[in-house]
């Protein structure tokens, strides 16, 4: 039992954090968009495009000039990150143009973006690298390395806290830590700044915001730029910050939808979003460690763990366990009265 607690649980929690990071970033991305009144089912697509841009540009930047690269050494990973953010913002702006300026259907726009991402990443990937849609394997300097926090080694032998600090808290890459900082930042922005107040208002009652002389359009565009940045980080994490070390076809594999589920689970709030994504990350960690889960009285297949986030979301949405009420103006294009 002690062994389970110290080794298995620690290892599971560690991988839960790794699995949760892209979910958390994408979930917060969705939070900005939906809190501002724009439905976003295109998180998956934005993440995928970002993951591709990160993998492709980090690879190009790190390659030697002879191989057609830019020979940028350790800066390559940052080029990849920047490319991911830019690519994701472009997608977010297409969504913004369709939803805000043209007052089109936000759900259909999201579906289109997901499709577009699934296609264009493989198309360009194959054209550039001729590797069946993959990007080249990334090496040192082209990806984010684990950061060993101070004293992690020397404190390792301290009972309980030592291994927790060394194995669980230390040794993640910068995006992991950044994502938790962004949770706090998002809370501050949302509840302690004027922009946050206005953004929440524009998602509930854009008419009132407009009456107060504040531009609904500008607010919503700003929110979607943030959504783009965060999806960019989420995508970059997948190709630059995991063992994959490169982009693979459809590598988001539904994470954008799990993030969406987590957003509902968290009732569109930042701190609960962190717990929700950690929970879903834990489910993924358990699912990938054990093919089947023997509970003693019954055996759960791995696919059950895979489906559990979605089942939980449906239950929450149905209001059987605490009702999830979305921002009131979500999905409705705002038409200024004339």
């Amino acid at each position, binding site marked *: 039992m002690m062994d389970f607690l110290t080794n298995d649980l620690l290892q599971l929690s560690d991988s839960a954090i790794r699995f949760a990071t892209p979910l958390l970033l994408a979930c917060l991305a969705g939070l900005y968009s939906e809190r501002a009144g724009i439905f976003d089912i295109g998180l998956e697509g934005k993440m995928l495009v970002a993951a591709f841009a990160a993998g492709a540009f980090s690879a190009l930047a790190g390659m030697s000039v002879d191989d057609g690269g830019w020979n940028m050494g350790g800066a390559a990973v940052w080029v990849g990150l920047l490319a991911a953010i830019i690519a994701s913002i472009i997608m977010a702006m297409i969504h913004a*143009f369709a939803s805000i300026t043209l007052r089109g259907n936000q759900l259909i726009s999201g579906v289109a973006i997901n*499709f577009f991402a699934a296609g264009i990443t493989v198309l360009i990937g194959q054209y550039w690298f001729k590797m069946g849609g993959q990007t080249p394997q990334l090496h040192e300097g082209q990806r984010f390395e684990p950061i060993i926090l101070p004293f992690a080694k020397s404190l390792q032998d301290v009972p309980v806290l030592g291994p927790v600090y060394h194995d669980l808290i230390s040794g993640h890459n910068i995006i992991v830590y950044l994502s938790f900082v962004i949770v706090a930042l998002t809370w501050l922005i949302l509840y302690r700044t004027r922009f946050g107040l206005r953004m929440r208002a524009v998602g509930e009652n854009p008419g009132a915001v407009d009456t107060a002389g504040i531009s609904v359009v500008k607010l919503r565009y700003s929110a979607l730029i943030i959504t783009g940045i965060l999806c960019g980080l989420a995508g970059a994490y997948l190709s630059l910050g995991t063992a994959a070390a490169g982009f693979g076809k459809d590598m988001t594999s539904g994470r954008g939808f799990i993030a969406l589920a987590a957003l509902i689970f968290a009732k569109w709030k930042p701190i609960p979003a962190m717990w929700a994504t950690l929970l879903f990350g834990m489910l993924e960690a358990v699912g990938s460690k054990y093919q089947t889960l023997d509970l003693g009285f019954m055996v759960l297949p791995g696919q059950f763990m895979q489906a559990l986030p*979605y089942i939980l979301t*449906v239950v929450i949405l149905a209001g059987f366990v605490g009702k999830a009420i979305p921002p009131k103006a979500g999905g409705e294009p705002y038409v200024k009265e004339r």
Partner: protein
Amino acid sequence: MNKNLPKWVDLGLIPLLTLFLAFAVSGLVVMSIGQNPIEVVRVMIQGAFNPFGIGHTLYFTTNFIFTGLAVAVAFHARLFNIGGEGQAGIAGVGVTLIMLSVDWPHWTVALVAGTVAAMAFGAAWAAIPAYLQAKRGSHIVITTIMFNLIATAVVGYLLVGPLQAEGSLPESPKFPDGAALPTLHDILGVVGIEFDRFAPVNISFFLALIAALLVWILIWKTRLGYEMRAFGHSERAAVYAGISPMKITMVAMLISGALSGMMAVNTVQGEAERLVLGAVEGAGFIGIAVALMGRSHPVGVLLAAFLFGILTQGGAELQFTLGIPAQMITVIQALIIMFTGSLENMVRIPLEKIFLNTGKRGQA
């Protein structure tokens, strides 16, 4: 749809212009990966219509008619059923269960049984999101997305567990011979017309045409269809007129799920004759594009489904002949959904301005 615009603009000109824009941008994408758009179009059309290709084109068209009709029926009641993918997947399980349970004596019986099973399972998978929308107010788009993903897990589990055939492949046992549906080769053979023997298109194609006719009758010639359209136009007015939102939401979604499900008759029973992993292949999502382009009208759906059938088969040929990944078609589909769906106002707003101005001048 819009009183300001003449019908031919709303139903003809706008879809054509948006389609043109989608193709124009697709052309740019083709050029950006170093290919010649004209050559690409030539290869695609040749690939979709040659004697070998047409049988595949019609096979894909059949799928898209079913899923397109499914989305269209829900659209009329202003419900966005994005769950065609899951409904068709679960319907495949239904078809498999019934086909494996009896040694079918004749295809006619098997066709009826398969269709009923597909419709029932597809409808059942749509029923829960529909009920939650009607009774608990959960957003149907989110629940149907979740149900797609749950369906993937269910089918994945069944194909490596209870339904798996002997061997290591994730697929069900082959159906008994009596369950095999006649292909277009068999059907046309009766009247002496030669058709590719190996083409997957089968009798389900005619089933799809009948379904389109029935949907047309339902939407425009029955009381229920009228109620659905009224509900879609204004929920409050419909409630005031004594139409029950619960009933309309449930019925529209059940019909929609049943239509998505019928696709399994074509793929699972008609073509593979067993359940395989990923049998739906995105057809549920393409149904959205088909319904959007077809303006949720059965005739429009038929035409749009045929177009997407051509694109799908032509896309396979692109890979074969020019080495362009099949994802080219995914991009074209995305652009069509974008331009005919979310970016449609790009075309509509300027056109409304033009026609409103000329209209005013005409009156003056």
